[in-house]
Every structure is written in C-alpha cells, then in structure tokens.
C-alpha cells in the first residue's frame, strides 16, 4: 500500500498565534517500504505520522493512500480505513488502563460480529509478541516493553497493510528497543507490511535503510 504526501502543511493555532509545524512536505512511501521519519523533538514527526494515518487533517496539501485522496472520503469510510488499513501505535501506547491486555488487543474488533473467529489470530499475535502469558493482566501490571508489544498486537489485529509507529522505543531500554525494532523488521520482511516509524533516536533511525529527516 503506497502513501503519497503532496505539499502538506500543518499550522496549529496556539494562543492566537499560528504555529507552523509542517511546511510544504512532499513524500512518497511505496508499498512494502519501511521508512523512518527522523528529527529532533518538536519538528513535527508525530504530526506527520498522524496525517499519514488519517488521524488528523492537513491545513493544506493532500494525503493520498493507494490513489485515494483522504480528504475526499466520508467519516464512516475514514473509520473503516483506519480500522482495516492502518495500524497506529501511539507514543504513550494509549492502552485503556481498565481493560486487560487481551481486551486491549481486541478493542478494534470488539464490535465485530465475527470477532470470535479471530481467537487464533490473537493467540498467534500474542505468541509473536512474547506476551502470551501476560494477556490477563491490566496495562498497569505490565512493563513498558510489554505494554508496547500489546500496543503493536492491537495495531496488528486487523492485519493492516500499513503500520505507523510514533516513537515506538521512546520509553524502552536498549534491549527492549532492539526487540521492538526487530519485530517491525520481521513484520515488514515476512508480511510485506508498509511501516513508518517516527523517532528522534539516531541509533534507531540508523537501523533502517530509508529515512526522512524533518527539521534542520
């Protein structure tokens, strides 16, 4: 699944002042690519990632996914797009703290009538992420590395074609960071999933071939 950004700008209004976060960004991510958006804090990495995933709308410019301009699709179609095509991993994981790990993983499909058919998939993902024995725990009872892996499993539950990960190693130690990087590489290698990561860690960025640098 390819993503194309055309002349993307994003301006935030903050206390009656305009804050230009992204300006005239052009970028193309090919199907099956793995790309790192790299830059210092405040350069707009997370904003760019949210625009790629349809989580936010640009002030100007176009986001085109598989030839479809995201600004032209209706809210329900947008929701379906996010559910089926995108796996979004928040920097702070955004796990719901009242739900067990397994319930967090199944959150995207909890309203689906055929969710029971995905039991095998859940167990397969949990095994892949190394959290099979942690499924009945609440997020607060998991380590940060485990929480991150639950968040990745949640993003993977609908077998998306694109994974967007915002600072996926920000809260992790080196060992866990390497594990997470390896997971992403494996998903890309074995399943051909397009992966876009945002990070300010040079070490993480240097682990990947394609990088898009934001800021000076």
């Amino acid at each position, binding site marked *: 699944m390819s993503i194309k950004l055309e002349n993307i700008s994003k301006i935030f209004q903050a206390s009656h002042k305009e804050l230009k976060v992204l300006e005239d960004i052009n970028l193309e991510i090919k199907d099956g690519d793995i790309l790192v958006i790299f830059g210092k804090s405040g350069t707009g990495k997370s904003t760019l990632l949210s625009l790629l995933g349809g989580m936010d709308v640009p002030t100007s410019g176009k986001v085109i996914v598989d030839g479809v301009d995201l600004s032209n699709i209706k809210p*329900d179609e947008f*929701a379906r797009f996010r559910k089926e095509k995108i796996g979004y991993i928040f920097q702070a994981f955004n796990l719901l703290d009242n739900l067990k790990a397994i319930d967090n993983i199944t959150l995207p499909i909890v309203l689906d009538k055929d969710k029971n058919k995905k039991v095998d998939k859940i167990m397969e993902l949990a095994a892949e992420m190394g959290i099979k024995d942690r499924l009945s725990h609440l997020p607060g009872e998991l380590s940060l590395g485990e929480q991150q892996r639950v968040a990745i499993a949640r993003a993977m539950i609908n077998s998306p074609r694109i994974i967007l990960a915002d600072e996926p190693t920000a809260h992790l130690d080196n060992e866990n960071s390497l594990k997470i990087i390896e997971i992403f590489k494996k998903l890309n290698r074995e399943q051909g999933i397009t992966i876009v990561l945002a990070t300010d860690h040079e070490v993480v960025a240097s682990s990947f071939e394609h990088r898009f640098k934001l800021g000076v």
Partner: protein
Amino acid sequence: MLIKFSIKNILTRRRRSLASLAGISISIALFISVILILKSAQEAFKKPLQDAGSDMIVQLQGEPCVWSIVKLPTDLNPIPLKFIDKIKSLDEVVAVDGALITWTFPLSSLSKMQKIHGSAEVYRGNIPAVKEVKNSTGTPCETGPAGSFCQTDEHAPVPSNFSPIVVAGVSSEPGELGPITKSDLKNIEGRYFTKEDKYAVIVDKDFARTRNLKLEDDIDIGPRLANKIIGIIDPGYDAKIAGAQVFIPLKVAIEMAGRGDIVDIIFVKLKGGVDTAVVKQKIKKALENDSVTITTSRDYLSSVAGFSFLAQGLMLAIFFIVILIVFLFIAKTAFAAALERSGEVGTLKAIGWRNKDVIKLIIMENAMLGFLGGLIGSVLGYLASFIYKINLPLALPYYLNPYPPCSRYLVKTLIVPRAGFPINIFLLTILLAVIIQSLSGLLAAIRILRLTPVDAARRL
C-alpha cells in the same frame, strides 16, 4: 456486543462509575423524597374526607352556644335538617348526610358540680351559669358550671373527672357518608344501629379501653344514665371528620340537644369532575346563609399547620427549583464524566471505531448508570421520605374534629402521612434519570467527536 462492552467498562471503571452513581443516586433521592413528602401530605389531607366518603363538609360557624348538659362544640352552630334536602336537590350532588356532634356532660359529674355549687338545677336542657368570666379584653367568655370548663381557677373549682364526652348522632342505617360508613363496619365489635334502637350506643375503641367499657355495659351520657353499648368501633389510625367517643342514633342526639331538628355537620358527595367552586356558591345560595363554611381537602390545606396559600405557592416554587437543580446536577455530572473520556474516545477512533459506535457506547453506559442511579436514588428517597413523614403529623382543623381542648380521653386529631410507594413516580423518575444521563453523555460525545482522533487521544 456493545452492551457487553458497556457493562465491562462500567464494572472496570469502578471509581468513575461509583462517583457517577453516587451523584445520580443522591440527586434522585432528593427529588423522590421531596415528591413523596409533598404527595403524601396531599394524600393525608384528602384522607379524612375520603374516609367520610365525602368531597365537601358543610358547617355553620358562629358565636359559641350557651352551656348546657348537651352542648354543640364551640364555634359550631346548628343547621336545620331541611337543608340536607336542599343540598341533595343540586344537580352536582350525588349524596348528602348529616351528623350532630355534641359535647355531652355525664349526668353523674353534673351531680358533683351541683354539690360544689349548690344551686345548679340539673335537668334536660340548659344549666344556669354559675358565674360569668370575662377575658382580658372584657368580652364575656363562655360561661358554664365552672366558667371556662377546662381551666380550673380559684374561683371555680372543677372536679377532676369533669369532662364532656364527644357524642355524635349518626344515621341509624350505615351509608356511604359520615363518621361511620359501611366500610368502617368491618372494624366494629358488636353491631351497628337498627331503626328500632334508641338508647343504644357505639363507643370508640380507645374510649372504651380508657373507661374499661365492654359490650352490653351501660354508659352515662347527657341526661340519661343507662345507654347500652351495642358496638365498639376501631376508628383506625388517623383523626376522622366528626370523629367521636360515643355514637348514638341521630334522632336521639337531636332529642338530647333539645334544639329542634338540627345537625351541625353535613357530608356532601359530588359527581366526578364538577367545579367545587360553583357547587359551593350553589350551596350557600340554597342555605341562604353566607356564613356557611364549606370545606374541601384543598380548603383545609390552607388552614392546617400554617399552610397558607402563599406557603403552598412557595412549596411549589421550591419543588420546581429542586427539580431544576437535581436535573442540572445530573446533566452536569454526566457531561463532565463523558468529557473526561476524550482520550479513550480518541484512541477508539484511532483504531477504527465509527462516531456512531462511540456515541452508542457513551449513551449505553450513561443509560445504565442512569437506570442504576435512578433505582438506588428512588429507594433512598423513599426511605428518607418515610423517616421524615412519620415525624410529620398534620392536625385536622378543629371545626372538622371538634374535641374539647381539655379532653381527658385519647383524642385523634392528627393525620400521619403514610409513605406510599407510587410505582409510577419511581418508573418516571428512573426514566428521567436515564434520559438526562444519556442526553448529557450524547452532548459530551458530540463535543469530543469534533476533535480529531489524535487530538482527543492525547488527552488519555
């Protein structure tokens, strides 16, 4: 699916759910208790009239009658019996009956008075006043054997057992109206009067107990020493209109009073839906007397326990303010609780939930909390009103239940509001709680959904 998820969310977000439940429950409890207290007071006011099978009570109030062995209660004047037929002839009237309430001195106690004061000649009818007493304004008070009969003073000693008995003359056949109706007969030991009965009496159960009276005993009332007790009636818990200690056939009471064919209280049953104000005017016109007192339950609400119409208006205003505050509080709590979920909603949207799924979830959770809170609040409100109401006895107006103020016997002059369980009010309140809680949740959800998923998710 959504219901299951909503229940899970409510159960796992215990602190938030309990805070919401507490808010709704307290508000609903306040609302229900105010409604129930007002409603039960209203019902309590109606009850004496309902017990007497009437919609209206007609009386003549005026100057106190002179003292005699058989005396009309203070302030009650006689109404000629023929007026009953006049009222009966009105189109709006279904049934009419009259009773004659008297304060009757036992002949035996008058004999003791005679011994003390020497000159009093006891016979059926008037007793000459022993002395005249003037009050502080110089106006002559009621005069009688002891001046003011319930206050002993140094000039007029009164024997300790000197007290009038409240005697009511009632129809010889039990009807639908009056101090004793057909439905009261299930509470009678012995029997009711027949047309042949003359010196037969029915006594109040409490009075009988106080005096150690039994069926077939003789009782000394008024000028006649031997009156056979044929029935003992349990008047129930509340004060009754024209409730008395002793009941006798109306014709005997008329004869004892010796003032012609009179009654002093008329019970009127009206057709359904008629305008009582119009009927009142017609009755006044029929009786050709403007000083006639016509009482409905609404009228004595204004004269009992300081309930003025102004107070009623004030209570109504307070009631509406309470409703407004309660529902604004519920709405605000629900709105704030839903707004706190911005982060959760943002996350749900980011992983593909549709706006309508989020709205359904919030409404469902709020509806469940509203239902539970409404239910708990209703029960708490009911208990609170129950505790409050049993401590809120309301006095029946004196003229409807004219007991001597110094009566030594048990007197029921109070109406105690009962805690009813009006299921329709509970259901309506629970429904209102569900609707308000859901609507507030909906408004908050709409506001959150205006944010982009990433903006909302940042608030987690």
